[in-house]
């Protein structure tokens, strides 16, 4: 990966808040990462950790009362946050496209699959003829493994099964050959067997079409399947980021460790007891002044209660935000 060291997208200190009647909710509180061409990054976290919000702000789909209040998003050297709404519209679906969690509700029930696929093409290419668009749509449907695409293209979403709808969604997202695909829990609403098929399909298409993917999920198993690197998010912040092998074999942040311990692993010979992470996520309306994970952390220290931890660089792109990494350092210093 990354023969070309050019960055596709770079996010710096992004902050997104929701201004609700109850107060400001810092859904994303200063996250930064970058993604190269043809790279797949997983974003993992529990619900409410801000992973979807972060994705929506890339593609400009944040809904009121959500607002980007700080940071920058740079896509191929262009500042996305400075785009006009019209530029943003041109950008969406063309350079970056997105697939969503629930394929049952994400397709418009009153139009045929073909109509919706072709629309994705025609909005970005006014010159394309209907026949061309149709041919592209059929080709794309075949690519995502829908048999009998010629006929299927005239069917309505309700005539498709859940897995097939998600395939159609993927076809629709990739029809304009976007450079980046954001997949927001694309397999969560599907049956396990279908999940595996869709993942397989995405992996295959990613290689074929040279698309980068930001893959949002709460399922670490899925991440292991498909991603090159992983960001673990907790309460609006990235807590650990690493290459996928590093994260699985050498997790550093207590939250990541907890996540891994709470997931079943089939590669272990002795089935281990699953250990849930105690407690509930913090209230983003009143975030603590210290580490967000502190209240649930079994290794919580006094400093964690008062100061947010900085990132420790553990080498080879592996970073982790936890005071524990600095404990030894302090020990050394005192010696």
């Amino acid at each position, binding site marked *: 990966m990354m023969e070309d060291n050019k960055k596709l997208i770079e996010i710096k200190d992004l902050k997104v808040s929701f201004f609700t009647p109850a107060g400001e909710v810092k859904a994303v509180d200063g996250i930064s990462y970058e993604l190269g061409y043809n790279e797949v990054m997983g974003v993992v976290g529990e619900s409410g950790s801000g992973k979807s919000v972060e994705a929506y702000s890339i*593609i400009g*789909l944040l809904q009121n009362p959500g607002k980007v209040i700080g940071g920058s998003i740079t896509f191929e050297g262009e500042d996305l946050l400075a785009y006009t709404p019209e530029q943003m*519209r*041109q*950008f*969406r*679906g*063309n350079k970056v*496209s*997105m697939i*969503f969690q*629930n394929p049952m*509700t*994400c*397709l*418009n*029930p*009153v*139009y045929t699959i073909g109509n919706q696929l072709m*629309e*994705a093409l025609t*909005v*970005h290419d006014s010159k394309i003829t209907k026949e061309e668009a149709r041919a592209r749509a059929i080709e794309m449907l075949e690519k995502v493994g829908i048999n009998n695409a010629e006929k299927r293209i005239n069917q*309505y979403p*309700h005539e498709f099964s859940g897995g097939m709808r998600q395939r159609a*969604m993927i076809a*629709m*997202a990739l029809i304009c050959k976007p450079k980046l695909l954001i997949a927001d829990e694309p397999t969560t609403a599907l049956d396990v067997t279908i999940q595996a098929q869709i993942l397989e399909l995405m992996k295959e298409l990613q290689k074929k079409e040279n698309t980068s993917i930001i893959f949002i999920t709460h399922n670490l198993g899925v991440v292991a399947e498909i991603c090159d690197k992983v960001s673990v998010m907790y309460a609006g912040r990235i807590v650990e980021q690493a290459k996928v092998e590093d994260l699985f074999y050498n997790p550093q942040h207590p939250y990541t460790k907890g996540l891994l311990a709470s997931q079943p692993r089939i590669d272990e010979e002795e089935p281990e007891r699953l250990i849930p992470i105690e407690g509930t996520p913090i209230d983003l309306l009143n975030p603590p002044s210290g580490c967000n994970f502190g209240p649930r952390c079994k290794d919580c220290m006094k400093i964690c209660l008062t100061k947010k931890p900085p990132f420790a660089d553990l080498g080879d792109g592996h970073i982790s935000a936890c005071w524990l990494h600095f404990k030894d350092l302090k020990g050394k210093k005192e010696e």
Partner: protein
Amino acid sequence: MLLYILKRLLASVGTLLVVLAITFFLMNAVPGSPFITEKSTPEQIAAANAKYGLDKPLIVQFKNYLVSYCQGDLGVSLKMQEGTPVTDIMFHQGKFQLSIKLGLIALLVSVIIGIPLGCIAAYNRGSGLDGFLRVVTTVGVAIPGFVLATLLLVTFAVKLQWLPTISGSLDNVKAYIMPIISLSFYNTCYLAKLTRTSMLDAINQDYIRTARAKGVTTKSIVIKHALRNSLIPVITFLGPLIAGIITGSFVVESTFSIPGLGKYFVQSVLNRDYTVIMATTFVLSALVIFMNLVVDIAYKIVDPRITLSSRED
């Protein structure tokens, strides 16, 4: 599709039968007969009853009605225009045509004005225009039809004298203005409110997010994606709307002295003119039931998910 329509038509006949049965037995539940007046002697009443077959057992009378309806005969008026065939009164005197004409124009006006207004309000949600439309439509559904009709009449016909007082036979265009406004105002406002709500509901759906993610323009999102979906609940309302226009026609026809079917029906009920009650009930119910059928077919056209055989789920 054809099979469905056939099935529905059959069911409609059943409904019509039930309505007629209810009407008939309700009508006859009251003791006495339409011929009782201050002066009439028992013999006269008995003679009149015998003449029009009212002395036969109820079930036979009911059967006779049905048989004659099947033959296209609506009977003769017993009281109001004694001896005149009801078909003559309804169709040749133009009552039916008049009411239908008024009703259809009012329906069209409501749809053509109401739905776009709702879209405009939803599209400009939160703006001053939206607020203004909300006030107008909410007030519009809170004014009783006869109050509006009377106010229009007094203001524009009596005080300002811009429009003719008595619309009568509706022989010029001006005569239509006030009856149509009175008949369609409530429905226009209701449709606008309904469209706005369902439009906003549609805009919050996942598929709209998908369309936005595809880069579809806002205009196209509203017109192509949201409108068609939001029309589904609006169509549901069209059935009651048609019934509502018939209700309204009673009021409007009385206020503007229009000799239409609605007014005629009320008069027949008040006069206990049995055959006319049955005949008007038959015609009006058939109309409402038929329009409901049309609405159901319109569903299928707008929403491909609805398999016509089971609308419920």
